[in-house]
C-alpha cells in the first residue's frame, strides 16, 4: 500500500505545454454558471457570485506565478560570471502589476497575453484590459458580459493580493472593422470584445504617486 502523496510533495514547476482542454473548461464553467443561475434572482447577483468565485483563484494565481517567474530566472544560464540569484521581486507599482496581469496571468490561464492594456483618459484611476475572446464567454450565444465576471473576479483577486484594492467589472465593446480578431477555428468571428475595467481605490493612487517621486 503506497503512502498517499501530499500536496507538499508535488512539483511547482510544470512542463511548458501543460494545458487543459477547452471543452473540459467549458463544460465545468457552464455547470458553474448554471449552478449559480438557479440560485439568484438578478443578473447583478449572478455577476457578484461569479466574481467571488474568481476572487479566490486570483490570490493563488498571484502566489504561484510570482514563485514560478523567480524559478525561471534562476534556471536560465547566467550571462556574466556573477552568481545568478533567484529573482525575488514583488510588484509595487500600478503599471507593473497591471502588466504582470495582462501578460503573465493571462498567458498562464488562457495561453496568450491579453490584447491590450490601456489607461483611461477620462478618469485617472481607471485602466482597461481588453480581450477579444475571453474563454468564459466563448460559447455563450449572445455575448453578455455577465459570464466574464469570473475573469474580473480573478483580476480583482490578484490586485487585492498584491495590495492594490480595486473594483473590476466586465463590459463589452463592439469590435471595429479593421481590428484583427483571433477567433477560434470553426467558430464565427465575434462582433464584440470584452473589456475589463479596473478602478483603483483612492489610497492606491496616492501611494503610487508618492512612489513616483
Amino acid at each position, binding site marked *: 500500500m503506497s503512502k498517499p502523496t501530499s*500536496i507538499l510533495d508535488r512539483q511547482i514547476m510544470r512542463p511548458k505545454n501543460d494545458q487543459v482542454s477547452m471543452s473540459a473548461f467549458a463544460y465545468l464553467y457552464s455547470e458553474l454558471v448554471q449552478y449559480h443561475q438557479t440560485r439568484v434572482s438578478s443578473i447583478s447577483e449572478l455577476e457578484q457570485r461569479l466574481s467571488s468565485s474568481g476572487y479566490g483563484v486570483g490570490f493563488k494565481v498571484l*502566489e504561484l506565478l510570482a514563485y514560478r517567474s523567480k524559478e525561471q530566472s534562476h534556471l536560465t544560464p547566467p550571462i556574466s560570471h556573477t552568481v545568478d540569484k533567484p529573482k525575488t521581486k514583488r510588484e509595487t507599482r500600478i503599471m507593473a502589476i497591471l502588466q504582470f496581469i495582462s501578460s503573465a496571468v493571462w498567458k498562464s490561464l488562457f495561453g496568450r497575453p491579453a490584447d491590450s492594456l490601456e489607461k483611461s483618459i477620462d478618469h485617472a484611476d481607471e485602466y482597461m484590459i481588453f480581450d477579444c475572446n475571453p474563454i468564459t464567454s466563448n460559447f455563450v450565444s449572445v455575448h453578455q458580459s455577465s459570464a466574464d465576471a469570473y475573469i474580473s473576479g480573478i483580476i480583482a483577486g490578484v490586485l487585492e493580493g*498584491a*495590495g492594490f484594492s480595486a473594483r473590476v467589472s466586465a463590459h463589452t465593446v463592439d469590435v471595429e472593422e479593421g481590428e484583427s480578431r483571433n477567433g477560434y477555428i470553426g467558430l464565427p468571428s465575434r462582433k464584440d470584445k470584452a473589456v475589463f475595467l479596473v478602478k483603483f481605490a483612492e489610497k492606491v493612487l496616492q*501611494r503610487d504617486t508618492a512612489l513616483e517621486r
Partner: protein
Amino acid sequence: MNKQESPLLFLIVGRNEPLYSSEFISNQKPTSDSITRQHYFVMHSALDLVDKFAFTYPQMYLKTVDKVNHQMVSVFLTASHVKFMVLHSGKGDDVLKQFFMEVYELYVKLSMNPFYQFDTHITSKDFDDRVRVLGMRYLL
C-alpha cells in the same frame, strides 16, 4: 561562558493575525529561555516597519527590519503580502534567506490546495512537520 541562546520564533502573518507560528529552541532546558509574550510583542511592533518597506523595497527578502536589544526580526514578504517573520539573535543573512526560500516553496504548494482559503490559519500537520525540519536544519 555560556552563549546567550535566545529562542527562535517563526511566524507567518496574514492581513490581520498570525496564521502559523512555531518555536525553535536549541537547548532543551525548560527555564526562562522559552518564548514569552514579549517575543510576540516585538514581532508585532515590527509589523509597522514591514508595512513601511512593503512598497518602497521591491524585493521579497527584507532582511532585518528591526533590532530590539539583542534580538532581531527578519522578514520575507511574499507576492500576496504574507509575511514570514523570524525573531533571532544574529543569524546570518544567507542562512535565513535559504530558510525563507524553502518555507516559501512549502507555502505556495499549500496555497494551491483549493480547500485552503487565503489568509486563514494553517492547520496542516504535514506543513508543520516540514517547517520544523527546516527550522532544525537552518536555524539551529
